[in-house]
């Protein structure tokens, strides 16, 4: 009988596997990141005003993150279903909660890289200026928001993976759920950027909201992921 390792070991192995896949295939750096960057440029075309761009930079940055996230989540489950690997994991009786945690961690790492890039783009293209405390706050916001996004993305991505007609379902299910993250992360980043004269200190309560979101969906995902991906 094949004895299963602890949840933690399995989750870390799954996360390491997903990161290795990204390192081998470079989809994030070669396709998703350029997409996110071009979205930021397109926003500049659409708004066509440097003052406004500076003011709304945080919102645009997080919108670009959410759109890119849809692609990354789908990619994360395409690699599972391409050769029946998720099926194989389930047949092997691997704990679905551990798979959820592992895939969420890997998704968080990828999203975080993407957000660093988007933050840099905002600074360069939109002329955002930050204090040292603001930079720290932006960093904390990204960490906490990414934790929530990674969990929700994996949870709903698992449901939307596989059978036909499900890919188009992902945005419909995912975007309403991440509304609190968009609101919270945008406000916190506004405080960090000082957009519209907001003080840095105004951002911390929003980070609290993001933390609550992350915790709720981390717990819910660990429980609900199994029944959702199971056939």
């Amino acid at each position, binding site marked *: 009988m094949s004895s299963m390792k602890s949840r933690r070991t399995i989750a870390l192995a799954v996360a390491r596997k997903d990161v290795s896949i990204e390192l081998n295939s470079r989809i994030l750096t070669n396709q998703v990141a350029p997409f996110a960057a071009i979205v930021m440029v397109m926003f500049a075309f659409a708004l066509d005003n440097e003052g406004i761009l500076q003011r709304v930079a945080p919102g645009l940055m997080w919108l670009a993150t959410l759109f890119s996230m849809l692609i990354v989540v789908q990619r994360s489950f395409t690699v599972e279903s391409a050769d029946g690997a998720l099926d194989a994991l389930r047949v092997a009786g691997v704990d679905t909660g551990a798979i959820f945690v592992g895939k969420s961690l890997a998704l968080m790492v990828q999203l975080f890289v993407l957000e660093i890039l988007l933050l840099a783009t905002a600074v360069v293209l939109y002329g955002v200026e930050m204090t040292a405390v603001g930079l720290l706050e932006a960093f904390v916001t990204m960490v906490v928001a990414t934790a929530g996004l990674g969990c929700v993305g994996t949870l709903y991505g698992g449901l939307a993976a596989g059978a036909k007609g499900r890919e188009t379902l992902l945005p419909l299910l995912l975007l309403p759920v991440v509304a609190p993250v968009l609101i919270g992360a945008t406000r916190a980043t506004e405080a960090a950027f000082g957009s519209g004269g907001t003080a840095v200190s105004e951002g911390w309560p929003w980070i609290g909201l993001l933390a609550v979101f992350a915790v709720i969906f981390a717990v819910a995902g660990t429980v*609900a992921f199994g029944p959702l991906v199971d056939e």
Partner: protein
Amino acid sequence: MTPNSGTGTSATRRLGVLVIVLAIALALFGLRFSAEDVVQGSTVRIMYVHVPSIWTAYIAFILTAICSGVYLSRRQRSLAWDRVAGASAEIGVLFVAVSLVTGSLWGRLTWGTYWVWDARLTSTAFLFITYVGYLAVRRLDGTHRQRARRSSVMALLAILEIPLVHFSVNLWRSLHQDASVADPNAKVKLDGLMLFSLFLGLVTFTLLFVWLVLHRQRTMLLEDSFADRGLDVAIAERRNEAGAQ
């Protein structure tokens, strides 16, 4: 109506007649007998359909969550719970849509605009989209049990998600009190007859909801058992394949 036709029984027929009578009474009280509001004037008459429809939607989604929870928690999982959950959610979506439309008509009269980024409106819109998503999940292909398990989990996730969205939208709006439009939450002062009309509306819509759920849930049972019956035929055909070779 001939007996035993369709999804009706004598009980639902009596309930249906009651709902029709109540609806007529509601129209009379709401549109004719009740007075106009001091502040809002005649526009308050929209309230008698608007408030009961959002009320019904909340009841519907609560029922969906309860039935989904019961479905998942029972050892012997009965699809009947899942069908009631699905019927209830479908009707809930209908009533949220109704309340969004009547609400924006009301808003056009009182605030001069169809939509304001008020916390209640915004989170109601999210409620609507969330349950449209739930219904889409119900339509994914698979067996009845797969559908039931997936959609029950989705319904419980929605229960987690909705307060969170509501809370964050509230927080978002509390920082942006816009003085340019009238306060969307301005209290309507209700006199006795207006209160009665509103109460009548709530009762009528709730009974209407019960009637709709009963019928819809039975149609779903028929849909399910027809799919199963198709399976019996298919099984017989499948067995014959062996002899034909």
